[in-house]
């Protein structure tokens, strides 16, 4: 419940504060958002599995974001940034889907 409230608060803050994204962050922010989304879905699944652990959640959240950003950064340095970004998004998308499927099985048995 508090997590949902936090999510809503974050969205509202982002919409109303309208902060400018720093230039150095701009290529990584979308990937970081997708990675964080993956971590949140994973956390939700763990919660339903009864194995949710806040420490694991924090570590996976931060690590996901950092690794995704690192891959994109490496890709940019190698000249394959757009392709690697696509790859990261695909992989994270697959993970989100599988987590969502697990959550769905938990909640609807289907």
């Amino acid at each position, binding site marked *: 419940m508090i997590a949902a409230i936090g*999510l809503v608060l974050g969205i509202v803050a982002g919409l109303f504060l309208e902060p400018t994204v720093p230039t150095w962050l701009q290529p990584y922010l979308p990937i970081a958002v997708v990675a964080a989304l993956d971590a949140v879905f994973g956390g939700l699944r763990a919660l339903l599995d009864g194995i949710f652990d806040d420490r694991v959640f924090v570590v996976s959240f931060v690590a996901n974001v950092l690794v995704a950003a690192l891959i994109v950064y490496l890709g940019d340095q190698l000249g394959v940034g757009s392709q690697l970004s696509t790859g990261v998004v695909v992989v994270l998308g697959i993970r989100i889907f599988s987590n969502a499927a697990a959550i769905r099985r938990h909640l609807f048995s289907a």
Partner: protein
Amino acid sequence: MSTTDEQSNADSEPPGPDIEHAGPEGEHAGPDIEHAGPEGEHAGVAVGAARVRGRARLRSAMHPRATRAQLVAAVLCGVLGFAAAVQVRANQDAGLTGLRQTDLVRILDDVSEREARLEAEARDLEETRDLVSGGSDGPLAALEEARARARVLGILAGTLPATGPGIELTISDPRGEVGSDVLLDALQELRDAGAEAIEVSTVDGPAVRVVASTSLVDVDPGAADHSSGVDVDGTTLVSPYRFRVIGEPRTLAAALDIPGGVLDVLSQRGAQGVVTERESVEITSLRAAPSPRYARPAGEGDGS
């Protein structure tokens, strides 16, 4: 302490509502769920139990409690929401700052290409505009040019009087030896020498403006004597003849004076040609401009 109680409460709640959903799972599920025992021998029972546990955990998680796990999850979800919102907003702004170099190069190419296309279009439109509006003094300038052109053409066509430097050629033919052939030779020679306007006449008699269509015919072709005169465009001229010619005087005089030229032929036939160079020759005889019956200016007629 209280947490445990709530969780146990939450665990004990589900059987009531879940029984309603037990229909599709068959008869086995009913009793098993009534037991509320998660450990069943049947697979369907396990699924149902997992669902129960999942919902229970979700429900318990929805209870706002200030546990560390909830707070951490809230903070991280807040970060996610904030970042997502910011990213969506930045994406809607569609600025170029976040794009990669290759994308920027492609966009630049597109823009350059588009610019070239639009510039070409603008040039075409400007040309059309200039044609239509003609600028500030366009129509006047065009009219003036057309008038000047009409004057030049009028002189060439013999519809306008002309004046300028030139020569006068007088041919006196006491023996009647000069016919249309000699006069025609003289005309051709003068034209070759750059004569711009020519008038032929009997001295102190009627004058005829010489134009492109001028014809010279002997009045009495069969006679050995040409004293009966020459018919020039329907006007009979007799000796002595006089040519008034506008052009470069020295060139015209030299053209007539060459060996074997007009003056030579005249003296061979016992006639006399006199060339006088003049500062100013006036040609006043006119010719009506013929209006063609069949020919039309090409490219201007509308065909109707």
